[in-house]
């Protein structure tokens, strides 16, 4: 991995502004910082203003694991693409897969509500997927172990996506962020995609770089095993990333 804030990486980032590029961002841990309560994760005013400004120059997408209704409460502008529940919900489209996902989630919820977790474990209902947060648990290891033990008993079997102090249960047939981004390439008809994310679920996007090309991948936080090519050290640097991209577009204007 190479730091994004280096001369060479900035030249690559600048070269994206010469072609038709879609800028896609993960939400939690990338645009918004990780907080104790997931419900408190909001964009700062500066980040939102910068995103708005960027969307004047190039299409912007927010790709999140959150449900679309929840996401809409958190952003006060209309990005060109809002991809939620890891690709299950794209903008306001209704697909048959959603009915099946809703049914699966309701069955898991019934099963999970019958289980006693410690007080710091919260079940987040994203309508078409579930998230079990254990960030505020006092015994994270035991709770994670407990979650891992109960998952195989769930019917129908979910796909499990591990995040930062969160276990996501998503319908087995549902897309992952990688397929969601591939879909974005098709929908937007852009020639290139810039993607930045912070956790394991973003690796599905990072791996596309090797199979599809057409994508510049950045990870929030350096991790040796990550497939992303570039990294920024902290979430707090996201505004600097946005400023740099906007600057490149401004420089290209007559």
């Amino acid at each position, binding site marked *: 991995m*190479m730091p994004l804030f280096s001369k060479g990486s900035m*030249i*690559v980032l600048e*070269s994206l502004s010469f072609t038709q590029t879609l800028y896609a961002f993960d939400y939690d841990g990338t645009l918004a910082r990780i907080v104790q309560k997931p419900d408190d994760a909001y964009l700062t005013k500066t980040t939102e203003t910068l995103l708005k400004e960027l969307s004047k120059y190039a299409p912007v997408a927010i790709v999140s694991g959150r449900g679309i209704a929840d996401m809409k409460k958190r952003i006060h502008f209309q990005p060109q693409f809002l991809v939620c529940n890891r690709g299950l919900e794209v903008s306001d489209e209704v697909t048959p897969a959603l009915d099946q996902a809703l049914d699966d989630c309701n069955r898991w919820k019934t099963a999970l509500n019958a289980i006693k977790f410690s007080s710091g474990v919260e079940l987040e209902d994203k309508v078409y997927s579930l998230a079990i947060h254990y960030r505020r648990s006092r015994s994270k290891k035991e709770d994670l172990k407990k979650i891992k033990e109960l998952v195989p008993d769930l019917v129908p079997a979910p796909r499990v996506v591990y995040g930062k102090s969160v276990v996501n249960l998503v319908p087995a047939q549902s897309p992952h962020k990688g397929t969601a981004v591939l879909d974005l390439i098709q929908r937007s008809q852009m*020639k290139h995609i810039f993607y930045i994310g912070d956790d394991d679920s973003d690796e599905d996007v990072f791996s596309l770089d090797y199979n599809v090309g057409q994508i510049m991948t950045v990870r929030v936080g350096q991790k040796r095993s990550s497939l992303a*090519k570039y990294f920024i050290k902290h979430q707090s640097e996201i505004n600097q990333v946005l400023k740099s991209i906007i600057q490149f577009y401004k*420089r290209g204007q007559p």
Partner: protein
Amino acid sequence: MSIHESELLSLFRIGISIHNFNKITERELGLSLVQWCLLTKLIDMPAASAFALAKGVGVHPSTLTQSLKRLEKKGFVHVADDPRDCRRKMISLTRTGQEALQTAEEKMSTWKMNFSGVKKELVLIQEYLANQISDSLEAEEGE
């Protein structure tokens, strides 16, 4: 189909004309035709590998080495190691390269007007003959 001597001679003349035209473009635009072709391709292929770029242009990767070196020297492209695989190189267009290409495009638009009289069929025949010759040379090398 065999190629007759007269056809070979006409191809040779075309080759010479292209060579001369290449010299003019390099003098007038600061870019040879190959360099112009590479920069044009690079616009839509940020951080392309040499292999992908060669494929995009339609030449063998080894053919690119010299042209890329010249473009890098002029500051028109940036060549860097792939962060995940240092055996691979990534080539990106720089701002200077993009501006040079824009200037070249403006000058070229006048030339392009002059070429508008060239019939498509003629271009296709030239391409066909050039491919035939290169195929037969490759076949000979193979033997």
